[in-house]
């Protein structure tokens, strides 16, 4: 019983689990048999849709599991209205797109001359995309949300670069990744800022506790930035048209239910936070308006089908952002409704574009037209979708504009006027798209499109019409989503009213204005083209390209300045070391810190030996011949041994003498290895600019001097452990404390030391003797 109830409490996980399992399942199927990837993937998408619908029908719910408790990160997912709406879109449209792809992709791969096995990759990433979207929709913890957020970016990167042999596809994918990936970090920073102040990452908890203020404004702005970049809003919009390098089903999915939708999904998710700051809402308003106009104007100028649709998407999501910016209950619920109706229509139009390009081999409006006779079903289906996008009556789109007008009216006349203008522009470019494809002169003859390329469009078109007749279910979903964002019920009640209420008048105005825009094309075309050219020359895309190029050039420049030759490598390290020591000495008090120490009578031999050591060391610097050099070096070493003897360290003396002997032998032996002539020539070489070297070595001297003097000036510590050593030496059965330390107290050091010795002989054997030990 408890197990059962536990299972029930985990039920909201079901959609996510199914959606996340889809990608590995399709990949696996595709690896086993390339042909299997498509059906398995499509089936999983359908399953995920059903699971989402079922769970939502059962009342949704929340699952809250510990994820990384140390950082307060929780695995919190909930199937609330907002989540349900986006998850249903992602899986439902995902299903249709995949069904479409099952026919489209083999054609595409065939055209590109790639093996069928590459299909698995496509389905894998598409379904990963879908899974990430479902996760994103359901995530309630901001870091968890960030994880899914970036997962969509990764999936889209690989999908845009699906034709990876094509440099354009790669560049476009990189652009999409950089724009969305880098801005995603802003989301993370925003989330962490909120966490630092409020101690929670959960959106519902934050919604309850945030106060308007600098923290909220900054964090909100950062999060909004990420959302707007993902939704391709001005000025981050440039990546979206470039992303059209992807295969058409990817574009369809990206624009309607996934990537771009993710941005507004995030806005909807954090809306409870954003709405507490009027400033943030105003930012959204401005960005939305800008995107509406820029997107619409550019859509009116594009010739390539997918480009036109891409700019239309920018514009359409501008509406959604605008709606959120308007605030209020109409804003939140209207935005959700807008997303649904746009998704259905836009996906259908993209799939239409793909189908037509497959059929005719053309992707430009100017070379297409009059296709109604060849592709009647497609014409009707996409006509319904276009009508939906243009917000004609008897389509679901009509209500999206109704809600828009209503929300704008609430805010004031100016906004109402702007929204009418925007709606008119939408009508104009939608007409341009559909009319340009299907009307006018065209070639006759029956089309030969496979059914799988048409029926998904028909289903979507049907849904658009169905929504126009029975808006209730869609409205309910949008209301639930709005409620999740707004934090209170948001009744929207879309319906046809046959009266002269303002929204109806505005709609009529929009139609009229739209027709006027279409009719007056010659009047404004030049202006629109000028705007588009201005964007090409000075727009953010140019900025991006300039930025990447400048970074590469800067990097080259820095690299040429980088120290890359052997000798300078060592010298270059000394400089900062010296500077650091100097800085360290400067910040500490020097008075009384440095002592010269007194020289006692008995110290003179020691002093003399030190002088000899110093002289010998200096002599090495101007000795030319190698043999002499080795001898001077060993001389210095022997005198050092003498110093050790004066200091009461006979062991060190003994070892120093032996080591010096050994080293001298080594040096002489090595110089035997190298032909005399080479050494001789080397010794005769001009010394070059010695002043630099003198400078560096003086610096090093100063470094050593500072470290040594500051340390030696300190009084030696009392109670040193060495006294313990002397005291304990008899316990180690030794009289000579040094030996006892080496073999007993600190035998581990000696073991390490002899290990170095062993390593050296191993190394010498490797270098001289091919690793054979003598």
């Amino acid at each position: 019983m408890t197990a059962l109830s536990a299972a029930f409490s985990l039920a909201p996980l079901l959609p996510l689990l199914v959606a996340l399992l889809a990608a590995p399942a399709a990949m696996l199927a595709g690896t086993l048999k390339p042909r299997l990837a498509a059906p398995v993937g499509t089936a999983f998408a359908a399953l995920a849709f059903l699971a989402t619908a079922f769970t939502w029908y059962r009342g949704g719910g929340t699952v809250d599991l510990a994820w990384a408790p140390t950082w307060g990160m929780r695995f919190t997912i909930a199937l609330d209205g907002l989540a349900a709406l986006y998850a249903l879109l992602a899986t439902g449209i995902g299903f249709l797109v995949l069904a479409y792809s099952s026919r489209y992709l083999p054609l595409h791969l065939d055209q590109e001359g790639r093996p069928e096995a590459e299909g698995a990759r496509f389905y894998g990433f598409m379904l990963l995309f879908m899974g990430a979207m479902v996760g994103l929709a359901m995530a309630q913890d901001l870091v968890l949300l960030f994880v899914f957020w970036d997962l969509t970016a990764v999936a889209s990167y690989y999908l845009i670069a699906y034709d990876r042999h094509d440099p354009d596809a790669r560049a476009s994918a990189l652009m999409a990744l950089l724009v969305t990936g880098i801005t995603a970090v802003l989301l993370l920073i925003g989330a962490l800022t909120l966490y630092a102040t409020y101690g929670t990452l959960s959106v519902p908890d934050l919604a309850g506790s945030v106060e308007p203020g600098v923290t909220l404004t900054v964090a909100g702005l950062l999060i909004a930035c990420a959302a707007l970049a993902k939704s391709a809003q001005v000025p981050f919009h440039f990546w979206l048209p470039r992303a059209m390098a992807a295969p058409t089903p990817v574009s369809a999915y990206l624009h309607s239910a996934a990537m771009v939708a993710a941005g507004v999904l995030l806005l909807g998710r954090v809306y409870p936070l954003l709405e507490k700051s009027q400033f943030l809402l105003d930012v959204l308003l401005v960005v939305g308006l800008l995107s509406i106009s820029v997107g619409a104007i550019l859509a009116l100028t594009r010739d390539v089908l997918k480009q036109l649709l891409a700019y239309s998407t920018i514009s359409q999501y501008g509406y959604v952002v605008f709606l959120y910016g308007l605030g209020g209950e109409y804003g939140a619920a209207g935005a959700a409704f807008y997303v649904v109706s746009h998704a259905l229509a836009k996906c259908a139009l993209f799939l239409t574009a793909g189908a037509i390009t497959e059929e005719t081999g053309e992707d430009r409006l100017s070379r297409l037209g009059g296709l109604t006779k060849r592709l009647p079903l497609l014409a009707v289906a996409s006509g319904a979708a276009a009508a939906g996008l243009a917000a004609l009556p008897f389509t679901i789109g009509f209500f999206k504009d109704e809600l828009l007008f209503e929300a704008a009216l609430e805010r004031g006349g100016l906004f109402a006027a702007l929204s009418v203008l925007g709606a008119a522009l939408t009508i104009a470019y939608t007409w341009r798209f559909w009319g340009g494809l299907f009307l006018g002169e065209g070639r006759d003859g029956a089309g030969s499109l496979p059914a799988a390329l048409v029926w998904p469009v028909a289903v979507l078109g049907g849904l658009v019409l169905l929504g126009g007749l029975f808006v209730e279910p869609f409205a309910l979903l949008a209301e639930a989503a709005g409620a999740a964002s707004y934090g209170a019920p948001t009744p929207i009640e879309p319906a046809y009213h046959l009266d002269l209420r303002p929204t109806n008048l505005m709609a009529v105005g929009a139609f009229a204005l739209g027709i006027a825009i279409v009719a007056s094309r010659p009047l404004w075309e030049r202006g629109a083209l000028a705007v588009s050219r201005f964007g090409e020359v000075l727009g953010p895309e140019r900025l991006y390209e300039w930025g990447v190029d400048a970074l590469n050039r800067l990097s080259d420049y820095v690299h040429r300045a980088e120290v890359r030759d052997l000798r300078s490598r060592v010298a270059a390290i000394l400089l900062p070391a010296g500077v650091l020591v100097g800085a360290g000495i400067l910040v500490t008090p020097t008075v009384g810190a440095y002592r010269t120490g007194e020289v006692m009578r008995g110290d003179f031999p020691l002093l003399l030996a030190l002088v000899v050591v110093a002289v010998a060391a200096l002599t090495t610097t101007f000795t030319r011949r190698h043999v002499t050099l080795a001898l001077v070096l060993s001389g210095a070493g022997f005198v050092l041994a003498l110093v050790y003897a004066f200091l009461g360290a006979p062991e060190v003396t003994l070892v120093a003498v032996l080591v010096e002997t050994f080293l001298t032998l080594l040096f002489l032996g090595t110089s035997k290895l190298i032909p005399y002539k080479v050494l001789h020539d080397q010794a005769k070489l001009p010394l070059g600019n010695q002043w630099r070297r003198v400078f560096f070595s003086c610096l090093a001297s100063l470094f050593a001097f500072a470290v040594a003097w500051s340390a030696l000036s300190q009084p030696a510590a009392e109670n040193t452990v060495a006294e313990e050593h002397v005291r304990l030496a008899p316990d180690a059965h030794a009289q000579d404390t040094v030996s006892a330390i080496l073999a007993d107290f600190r035998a581990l050091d000696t073991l390490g030391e002899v290990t170095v010795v062993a390593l050296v002989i191993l190394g010498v054997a490797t270098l001289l003797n091919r690793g054979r030990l003598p």
Partner: protein
Amino acid sequence: MTDQTLLVLPAGIPWVLAAVFALLDGRRRWVGRIAAVGLGVSFVSMVALALRVLRDGPVEVVAGNWPAGVGIVLRADALGVAFAVVSIGVMLVSLLYEVSLGMRSRTFPAVVLFMAAGLTGLFLTGDIFNFYVFFEVSVTAAYVLTSYRERDYQVRAAFIFAIVNLFGSVVFLIAAASLYHVTGSLEMQTVAERLGETSPNSAITIAVAIFVAFSLKLGLFPFHFWLPAVYVGSHPPVAAILSGALANIGSYGLLRFGGILPDQLALGTYAVLILGSASIIYGALQSISRSDVSEVLAYSAIGQAGYILLALGLGGPVGFSAAVIYAVVNSLNKALLFLVAGLRGPLVGAAFAVGALSVAGVPPAVGFIAKIAVFKAALAAGAGGGTAGAVGTVVFVTVIFVGGALSFVYMFQIYQRVFLAREPQGGHVEKPSPRATRALVGVLAALVLVFGLWPEPLLVLGEEAAAVLTGSPGDVSGGGDSP
């Protein structure tokens, strides 16, 4: 198994095996395999020790059954085991990699095992001079490893590496002797206690010397000049060992001795922060236009080291744990990427992509956890600091953000150029690397993903390690001074 046995095993096993394997021909397949198995056992015991430390607090043994300080103190605390586990892990993977490719040198397995022993000892010792000795064992092994395969550029790399590191170890030696001179002890905790009572003058120069020594090791700007030549020239598994295991000495040393010298470090915080930020930006900038994978990775290593230093400079429990987490994650990333750089064939590109995502801080690769950690450190540094704190936070968040953005650019530029465009298209197919080698890299990539999805162990490790440094160590348990 008693604690002291557990403490000795991770270093002891590779040490003894190394002495034996030095006499055998490492090119024989079975020799390499047994060496790998031995290192694997050492790794497992290290993990067991780590679990033990995380559960019950530090484990301590005094060598030779003498009082602490007279004998060398070996102490496994969270900080040490964190670094030891990841370093041995990286070495294990690199050794397996080379075994699967086919060993080219008689001495390779022995040298790797020696290095494993040296590194483990270094991370587990509580004695400054003993640290130096283990340091020398590890770097001497590294000199030999760098010249592995003995191409011109590898010998050259080994030479540069040896010269610079010898310089570094002499500097460290001088610092160690100074510490002994002013405190009269070599045991780290005693030194830390007594150092507070001495004048700041020598302490600051000691701090600088230690900083220079470990910055050299870690390859921080502007002490990095040796690094590109060495990392680019080395054979992939060697580069992986150098950057994924040996460079940990640098981060560990900075953290450990930063813990010993807290007051002095506070004075130098600005220097540390500035150098850290400079490293981040400089390394990233250098990487962008590099055209060779290992070159990009080499310069990227400079930038990544900068994050560790920045986190260290930000300090406090959050900063220290961020430094540890970043260091561990960076080791994983670098090992994965350097190993992948030498391979061809299916799934190699995917493995590289995982590493690239990790470096760029994109989930679900573990790198984003490290990025979150440093962001948190930067945000925490500003909390309660008034205007100055807020400005600092903004500056450091910006630096981390810009560094992260640049890492996006360089990782994916090189990924696109080398891996994405080149994956088999039919037609010309390069001969793929052995399946076992690719599988190994796949395991490493999977690990990067697993820790990204389930970061809790990493976070606990970071938290506990930071607790060691902020002076709230758990009770010392086990130990040999209670016979």
